[in-house]
């Protein structure tokens, strides 16, 4: 009862000073919008990095050769490169139960041409298991098979960037391309992966034997991609891979001539970093919300001073302290709630815009949080002016001009 009456009185005061109410609301609106938008951008950036890491395969381990050195001094002069045999050893289900598959990769830069176009890219000679290990489905055509690998057939699955570059207006399936002059038949096009780092779609994938035969020659491989049986077992799979390779290379931790790169731990690191980034953005928004709150205190104090006489009249004809307190608190709270609602509207509008390739993603918690905080701001920043109004003595207030 008293609540509704006080709300009505507060509302009348807000309407009576429309321009001032709007300006006060503006401060809160900008603050709330800033919090929601900045957090949404942080979340959007986080989503984009996470999805590009996941598109590489979330349970992927990547083994690359690494010269062991300490302060520039080579510790192990008899460095062995990674070989196809290493990849075969990693495919041992007894010694490496948590490894689902391992495929050697032999990468080299090539220039590929179609009938009338040319495109500089990278060729990857690998095994057919590469596609499942790297989470790389084809969007058209087929993969190559073990039989193709055994017979070193010159066929290829091309990335979507290569497909667009060499065959912009026609279907690449069944067509011939020449990479460094060696002809390959396109049998498949890899589904677009996208990504924030190197473009994983700018690649030509062919059977390892065919690439070795015709382009690179035999020898060491550039990397071995290893798939753990699940994302929970990536750490176990990493240990097993290290143990097998250490034994084959005769190395220990200090002299290790390879490096195992764990996708899951990268994801963790990236998420932690982005979480901090998002929190920082939110903090910047919170500062503007604080400024908005101080604006409310300011306006409410002006309002109390301006309405001293009115408060005196109200008290003279029987308003209790509690009523005056409630009226001013509700006035401040209503102002900040309106600001929060307008800010939310603004934030939802701005969140439609994509900036620097990041599409913001509005976090529900930040919306609820912005509302809760703006009510708190109304109560907190309104309480001082409200207390001042409530404790005015009626005779002094009535004398006020």
């Amino acid at each position, binding site marked *: 009862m008293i609540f509704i009456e006080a709300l009505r009185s507060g509302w*009348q005061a807000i309407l009576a000073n429309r321009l001032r109410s709007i300006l006060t609301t503006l401060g809160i609106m900008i603050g709330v919008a800033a919090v929601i938008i900045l957090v949404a951008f942080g979340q959007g950036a986080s989503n984009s990095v996470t999805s590009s890491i996941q598109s590489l395969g979330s349970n992927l381990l990547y083994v690359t050769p690494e010269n062991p050195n300490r302060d520039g001094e080579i510790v192990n002069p008899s460095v062995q490169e990674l070989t196809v045999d290493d990849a075969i050893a990693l495919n041992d289900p007894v010694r490496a139960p948590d490894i689902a598959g391992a495929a050697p990769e032999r990468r080299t830069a090539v220039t590929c041409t179609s009938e009338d176009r040319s495109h500089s890219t990278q060729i990857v000679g690998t095994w057919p298991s590469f596609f499942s290990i790297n989470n790389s489905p084809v969007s058209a055509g087929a993969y190559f098979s073990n039989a193709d690998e055994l017979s070193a057939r010159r066929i290829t699955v091309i990335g979507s960037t290569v497909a667009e570059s060499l065959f912009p207006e026609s279907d690449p399936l069944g067509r011939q391309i020449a990479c460094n002059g060696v002809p390959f038949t396109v049998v498949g096009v890899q589904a677009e992966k996208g990504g924030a780092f190197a473009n994983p779609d700018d690649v030509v994938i062919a059977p390892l034997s065919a690439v070795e035969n015709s382009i690179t020659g035999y020898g060491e491989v550039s990397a071995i991609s290893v798939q753990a049986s699940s994302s929970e077992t990536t750490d176990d799979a990493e240990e097993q891979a290290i143990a097998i390779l250490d034994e084959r290379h005769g190395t220990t931790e200090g002299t290790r001539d390879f490096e195992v790169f764990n996708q899951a731990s990268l994801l963790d690191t990236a998420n932690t970093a982005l979480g901090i980034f998002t929190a920082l953005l939110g903090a910047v928004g919170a500062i503007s919300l604080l400024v908005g709150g101080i604006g409310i205190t300011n306006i409410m104090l002006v309002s109390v001073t301006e309405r001293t006489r009115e408060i005196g*009249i109200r008290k*003279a*004809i029987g308003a*209790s*302290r509690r009523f005056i307190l409630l009226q001013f608190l509700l006035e401040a709270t209503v102002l900040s709630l309106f600001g929060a609602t307008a800010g939310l509207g603004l934030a939802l509008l701005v969140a439609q815009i994509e900036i620097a390739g990041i599409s913001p993603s509005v976090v529900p918690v930040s919306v609820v949080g912005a509302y809760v905080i703006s009510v708190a701001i109304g109560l907190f920043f309104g309480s001082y002016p409200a207390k001042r109004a409530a404790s005015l003595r009626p005779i002094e207030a009535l004398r006020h001009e």
Partner: protein
Amino acid sequence: MTAVVEMHDITKVYGQGEAEVRAVDGISLTVEPGEYVAIMGASGSGKSTVMNIIGALDVATSGTYKIDGVDIGDLDDDALSLVRNRRIGFIFQAFNLIPRMSAASNVELPLMYRGVRRSERRRRALDALAKVGLADRSHHQPNELSGGQQQRVAVARALAMDPSLMLADEPTGNLDSRSTADVLDLLDEIHSEGKTIVIITHEDDVAERAGRVVTLRDGKVESDVLAAAR
């Protein structure tokens, strides 16, 4: 019957030591129900202070004061608000209507603080406005009304509360002679219906309307005369 106003040896002291001012110095005053009392005095005679104490806007330094038999000497701020709300209808020199609120809303306000339901208080507000002859102005805001009309709205606000005491502080001080007559006629009418009225004034012709004139001087009662004796 319980007296509406019962002041006994009231003093009000401002400041301390050398700067001490005794604005009211031992006033005793009783107003019975249905009386129409004018309190007169030059400025500085203490009549404003007496008015504030009678209206429960201020508390005395010493002495006892009862409204309707209720001692208000040791009531806190909120309890004083309640006393004012239930028992006193104020009519101020400066009208003291709340700006940007319609006449009807202004009249309703004390009833709202009393917790009267919306429809009920709207009805009582319109009745009171009709009584002061402003039924057609109920939607007007104070700045759309003349001074005399504003003061009549203030009278309606006091009436709607159905108070034990109508307390008017120089009610005609800001009005021209015609509006003064209107407002004083209205007070006469209210008095004739049995209301108790205390009016603070320094004008003789205003005081003439009252049945009893109390004159203050230097914070003391100088004279207390019934009209019959004049």
